[in-house]
């Protein structure tokens, strides 16, 4: 039953990703000019003799003389085979450019979610079990502040105070010497030393949202009769809380991953630009500015895949946790 549910869920993923990719491709096709025209204009501006035959050759090479639909299928076909196209600007395959950066994006995103859980869960429980207390108000306010301060500002402010108070210059996800080097213990150490700052910055907003959601959910459960009954028949408060209401609200907690992941990825992109992390953010921004279509499109598609897979994981975890979903075997919402 569970297996069938998971299979079904994976099958649904395929059309979703197809539509997403078509959407991204359309967005990339929208600009009236393309990279070659920009290149031609740039060459002309620099006084170089615009070599039309070379540009014609490049256009043919990348299939830009074909209709967009055909190019889309070539792009997607390549994607499946692990060929993500060619970056015009960097003049190298997108795969080589993306490789490590994407891994780091995944690392940052998942560490952020982990931190969000570790922080939000206890705080949410505390707030719900001590509603309208000073602690609750204080924590709610801090959480709201986390939501209200844009990621990039938090990054800027952190950088500012790190500089003023400690004389540190933070930024990057590792010491520059390690980037694009093979994995080593020193590199791992360097990454770990740098990782916590962006993770805290990106996690702030998500943590605030999650604390509020957990609090609201648990508070609802705590008012229900089964909890009153559990307490009335003499269950110790801690056990009464953990055994029933907490389990109920856990359900929501897991399904929230799906909502939180796009936010985390979005936030990490922005933070990455400010902190100049070696993740996808800065490169994506650059690619978008120069209309390096394959690079930008592949990045976007990767990020979307990341969230779609994250949602899949959360759905499967939910099916494990909640027998009702497993037995229905249907859609979740």
């Amino acid at each position, binding site marked *: 039953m569970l297996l069938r549910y998971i299979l079904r869920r994976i099958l649904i993923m395929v059309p979703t990703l197809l539509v997403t990719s078509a959407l991204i491709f359309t967005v990339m096709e929208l600009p009236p000019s393309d990279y070659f025209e920009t290149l031609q204009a740039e060459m002309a501006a620099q006084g170089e003799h615009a070599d039309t035959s070379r540009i014609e050759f490049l256009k043919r090479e990348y299939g830009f003389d074909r209709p967009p639909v055909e190019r889309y299928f070539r792009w997607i076909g390549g994607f499946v085979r692990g060929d993500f196209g060619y970056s015009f600007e960097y003049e190298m395959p997108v795969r080589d450019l993306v490789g490590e950066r994407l891994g780091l994006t995944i690392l940052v995103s998942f560490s952020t979610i982990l931190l969000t859980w570790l922080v939000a869960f206890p705080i949410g429980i505390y707030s719900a079990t001590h509603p309208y207390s000073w602690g609750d108000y204080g924590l709610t306010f801090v959480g709201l502040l986390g939501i209200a301060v844009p990621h990039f500002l938090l990054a800027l402010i952190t950088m*500012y105070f790190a500089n003023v108070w400690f004389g540190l210059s933070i930024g990057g996800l590792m010491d520059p010497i390690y980037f694009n080097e093979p994995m080593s213990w020193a590199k791992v150490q360097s990454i770990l030393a740098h990782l916590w700052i962006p993770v805290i910055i990106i996690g702030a907003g998500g943590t605030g949202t999650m604390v509020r959601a957990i609090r609201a959910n648990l508070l609802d459960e705590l008012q229900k009769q089964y909890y009153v009954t559990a307490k009335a028949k003499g269950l110790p408060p801690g056990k009464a809380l953990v055994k029933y209401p907490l389990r109920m609200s856990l359900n929501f907690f897991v399904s929230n991953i799906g909502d939180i992941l796009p936010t985390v990825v979005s936030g990490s992109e922005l933070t990455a630009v400010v902190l100049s992390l070696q993740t996808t953010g800065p490169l994506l921004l650059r690619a978008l500015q120069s209309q390096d279509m394959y690079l930008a499109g592949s990045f976007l598609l990767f990020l979307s895949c990341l969230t779609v897979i994250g949602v899949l994981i959360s759905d499967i975890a939910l099916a494990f946790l909640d027998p009702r979903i497993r037995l229905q075997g249907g859609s979740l919402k």
Partner: protein
Amino acid sequence: MSATTHSLPPPGAPLDHFVDDAPFDPYATEPMTKAQERIYLASQLTLMWWKFKRHRLAVVSGLFLAVLYASILISEFLAPYNYTERHTDFIRSPPQAVHLFHDGNFIGPFTYGLTYTLDMEKLRRNYTEDTSRIYPVRFFCRGDSYRFWGLVEGNLHLVCPGEGGTLFVLGTDRLGRDMLSRLIYGARISLTIGLIGISVSFGLGIIIGGLAGYYGGWFDLLTQRAIEVVQSLPHIPLWLALSSVMPPTWSPLLVYFGITIILGLMDWTGLARAVRSKLLSLREDDYVVAAQLMGAKTPRIVFRHLVPGFMSHLIAMATIAIPSMILGETALSFLGLGLRPPITSWGVMLNEAQNINIVVLYPWLILPVVPVIAVILAFNFLGDGLRDAADPYR
């Protein structure tokens, strides 16, 4: 005989029983107090208003936002300077203090003159207060000229610097423009972009969600998949992609509308979902059947009879969604892909504070953060209050 009182009347004659002359009053046994009566007779809106008033933080936030939105109507009058006015003698001047006393004598609000020296060693501009020159601040005065809403010529300001003096309460930027004035002007763009953006997504959400919920079938299925796709996309990268698509030849105003539409296009899913699920439960109700039997067309049923029923709930949801729009604009402009000068918004202003060196040297350039955070907090509190007020079960 005793039978006279209990005997039946002759056939055909009415039974004699007691009838009270007073009009019927169902609550006669348990008369309602005036206070209770008020609650029972109050309209839905009045009830919501009462509930909302109890949420003090929400009321304060609402007032704060109302004042801010009112201020954008008269930005030109409130700002001490015209936001494009460059004071080339005072480039990156730090915030200037407004004093009340000079040598122990009360003068009223005034500023000291600024003396500028160039530190050749560090190549930094230094500004020191020259306490010998005193410039009392003027009120309701003639200052920089402006075009009110780009239409009417004027030069009346709420406050102006003293004659020959300066009044840079929040400092100046790299072109010597007054930060406070730019903040006041920037509110006009930053605050409206959230409202227009939410109107776009509100419209889309209600129409798409309404049709999906009411018709069901294949349209519903398609909508649900579309919502899933849009929700699984990370917003900011896609916003970036969409705004980089806008041709650089567009006028700033066109870019402004482009950005609002981009922000709105990604945000309708939550509302559409809420509308859909509400409609699914409501469309089986008797009053809908009645409307159908009377020959009402579907759009009329949905938008005239069903949607108003949960409009308050939707408005509360929309209020909570506005901050993400404002943040989105700020983020886009901060990265240089959103609004472009000469349009001034808080995000555009922050774009100048992108570099850590600048932030350390001229920290007042990140001041636009303060209104951004305040507005977003206020919208959150207001939205919370509205949501609680609109929820009949609380």
